[in-house]
């Protein structure tokens, strides 16, 4: 058997809830992981930030346990958390094997019976917490608003990737409890969810417990999929003044959706261009020319479409235009000639190793239970792990070069310069000032 494997068994309950089980008996813990197929892309303009604020409310109590979710689970030695992005919302617990009933009781109670416990006061307090989360992670953080500005430029106003998951502060303030209740009814039910159990539990018992706690919940209507398209046909140059010491340049392109053709190639390109000292741009900008402090790139694969982001911070006294010029040369080279044989070998070795490292933990963000749910929700197949690695194994110098040529075009991108306040001359020529808050 290929040791890089993630075996599982999947069954659906009568109400539509997918249940996926993976056994791993090394440590006496079980990971419970639930995905709801809803994220900020299900929001509408004027109501942004909804999906994420809702996630906070899921920890405040449900009809039969009308107080916080942390105390009973912490008392049992469990850890728990949740997160929201554009495409999905996930919730997880990692508990000692002895507390599996407790975790499933609670998860099923908030899936089926949340609303009676959802009070105006809890809603108001969590809204304040989220406004503080927004201040801490975006408003009060250097360069914290840059990606927000990029999303606004990359996607039209009615496209659900136009806004970030944290939402607009004004929208959060305008939100009402009734809106939250109707959000729950639409998206939080078994037919829109996927449950993965991984760890020290045998399969038969896992399915029996899933049926016992979730089987009684009524199925809901599967929400209609969101569809939207976006393209960009020129280079959009923007400038954002921020409380920063050093200017930074961001370049963003529309790129393939998650698991679509070229998605893995773009991921490999990100590594090849800007991940670690061996990458082309690190070598040129940071190691040899020393005009940048750092450079990074990543392929952000999402359900409707992806975006590829490249970021570099100028060294003191250096102008971002000089960084941009060298970046453009490197992009042209990789589009013309593709990666070298040695670069492909290295990239594949790293992919092989990282897939193995991903098998080390059963729970939490990125653990095996989270991966099974990701594959199930986005591909309808929890067993996509091997095929996922296969995408990287199948990539070639030619396929990577072609992907670069298609995606990384200098005249179809957003180029954002973030500059210290009062120094607009540090932006790329012709940049339009933007204001984000």
């Amino acid at each position: 058997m290929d040791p890089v494997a993630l075996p599982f068994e999947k069954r659906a309950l009568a109400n539509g809830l997918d249940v996926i089980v993976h056994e791993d008996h090394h440590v006496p813990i079980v990971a419970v992981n639930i995905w709801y197929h809803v994220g900020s892309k299900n929001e509408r303009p004027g109501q942004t930030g909804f999906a994420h604020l809702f996630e906070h409310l899921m920890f405040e109590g449900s009809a039969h346990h009308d107080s916080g979710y942390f105390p009973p689970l912490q008392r049992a030695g469990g850890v728990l958390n949740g997160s929201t992005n554009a495409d999905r919302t996930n919730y997880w617990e990692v508990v000692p094997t002895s507390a599996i009933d407790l975790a499933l009781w609670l998860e099923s109670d908030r899936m089926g019976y949340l609303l009676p416990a959802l009070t105006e006061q809890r809603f108001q307090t969590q809204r304040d917490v989220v406004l503080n989360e927004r201040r801490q992670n975006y408003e009060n953080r250097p360069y914290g608003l840059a990606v927000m500005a990029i999303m606004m430029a990359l996607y039209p106003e009615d496209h659900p990737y136009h806004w970030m998951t944290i939402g607009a502060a004004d929208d959060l303030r305008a939100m009402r409890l009734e809106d939250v209740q109707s959000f729950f009814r639409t998206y939080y039910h078994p037919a829109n969810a996927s449950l993965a159990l991984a760890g020290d539990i045998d399969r038969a018992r896992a399915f029996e417990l899933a049926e016992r706690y979730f089987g009684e919940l009524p199925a809901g209507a599967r929400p209609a999929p969101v569809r939207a398209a976006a393209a960009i046909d020129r280079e959009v140059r923007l400038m954002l003044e921020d409380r920063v010491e050093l200017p930074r340049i961001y370049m963003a392109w529309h790129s393939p959706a998650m698991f679509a053709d070229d998605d893995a190639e773009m991921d490999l390109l990100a590594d090849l261009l800007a991940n670690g000292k061996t990458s082309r741009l690190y070598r040129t900008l940071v190691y040899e020319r020393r005009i940048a402090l750092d450079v990074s790139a990543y392929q952000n694969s999402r359900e409707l479409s992806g975006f590829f982001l490249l970021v570099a911070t100028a060294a003191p006294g250096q102008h971002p235009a000089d960084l941009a010029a060298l970046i453009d040369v490197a992009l042209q080279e990789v589009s013309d000639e593709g990666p070298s044989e040695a670069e492909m070998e290295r990239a594949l070795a790293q992919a092989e190793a990282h897939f193995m490292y991903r098998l080390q933990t059963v729970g939490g963000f990125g653990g095996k239970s989270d991966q099974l749910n990701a594959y199930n929700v986005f591909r309808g197949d929890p067993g996509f792990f091997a095929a996922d690695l296969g995408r990287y194994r199948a990539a070639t110098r030619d396929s990577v070069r072609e992907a670069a040529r298609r995606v990384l075009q200098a005249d179809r991108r957003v180029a954002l310069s973030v500059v210290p306040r009062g120094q607009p001359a540090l932006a790329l020529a012709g940049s339009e000032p933007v204001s984000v808050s």
Partner: protein
Amino acid sequence: MPVDRSRLPEVEPDPPFRFPRVARHTLANGLDVRTVEHYTVPVVACALLVQGGAGADPPGAEGLAALTADMLDEGTGDLSAIDVSEGFARVGAEYDVDVGPDGAQFGLTVLARFLEPSLSLLADTVVHPSLRAADFERVRKLRLDRLRQLKDQPPAVAERTFLRLLYGAHPYGHLPIGTERALGGCRLERVAEFHAAVFRPARATLVLAGPLPHERLVHVAEAAFAQWTGGAADEGWRAGDIDPAHAPPRIAVVPRAGAAQSELRIGHLSATRTTPDYPALLVMNALLGGQFVSRLNLRLREEKGYTYGARTGFDWRKRLGPFAMQASVDTAATAESIRDTLAELAAIGDDRPPSDEEMALARASLTRGYPRSFETAPQVARGVAQLALFDLPDSYFEEFVPKIMAVERADVVRAARRYVDPGRAVTLVVGDHAVIGESLVALGLGEPQLVPATDSASGTE
């Protein structure tokens, strides 16, 4: 059978768990090697700990330990920095460096089949770094620029200023990255000197955890590190005594005009990692602010919505380390958050000792989830390296749960009285002084001392 939703299900007794068995060996050159057999996926984790962190930085050379650690993978023998990085990358190995107050730790995670070449490369960089002048200039400059960038980040500004206020001129009083002035004047010879004095086998511990027998792991360690020579560990290059006469201000502000939030640190020097009161302090911290369900987070986040999260913690060191609360709070709620925090710090050893419920929750959350800390090879390797850093026994993991369970309410109250004192706590605010200044004066902690966000002026002496 329908689910009984009238009450939460009972949690059964904790499942049995076998903690990792640590085997020790000493190589001929004096290197302490500790191995753990960890059979899950074919991944081996290595942690090389060297005693001597930022606390060993000589006066005027703040940042030397971290700079030295950063220089090691910049080349060895004929290999350049790029070659070294390529050597790890082409087998998918992950390399990281972490310099703390008392030690530097080099981590390597690698597929078991690539263990030998990766560990050999790590050993070559640690034992025979090239320390070339051009690399040194580049790395030193990058760290200076990084320091400059930290001025934009409220949490980093707070961390840096808080340590300076608490410790004054003691080497614990700066972040491992150091200061502009010291890094600006640092020369390559200092790095070579630090490397020669500190990077000796007698000061180091190598931990290997992975799916191989002890003998095999030791063999691989020996093959890689037998080349390491060096005399006995001298007693220098460690953090010295802390000046008990150093008196920090009660309240200080780093002004940040227009800040959306105030970054807070509230605390004082408190305890050492090796205190026998360690278990009581862990329980106390858990219920006061060490986890989500704790007095401070419930009050500031869940009840009042002032912050995305507030927590307390001990910064464990070989010598006296801080106990402090940290949070980023809405500017308008700054004074109120400070008042609430000081009240909670006072109450636990005084009029609101822990309830039975709080005691049970804190003990259970620390012990019942403990096996989770041993799931992956990197977790195990890091855990064992921590034991080495603080000279704790191999039986530590097994003794942890019984020791925590033995902590009683009276122990927590006694520990709180001895180790937590709002009366000598330093309150540091990185925030919009024009908006909050008056409300801070009204706290009754005296006139706030204003501290700029640059290192040259942040001293208190």
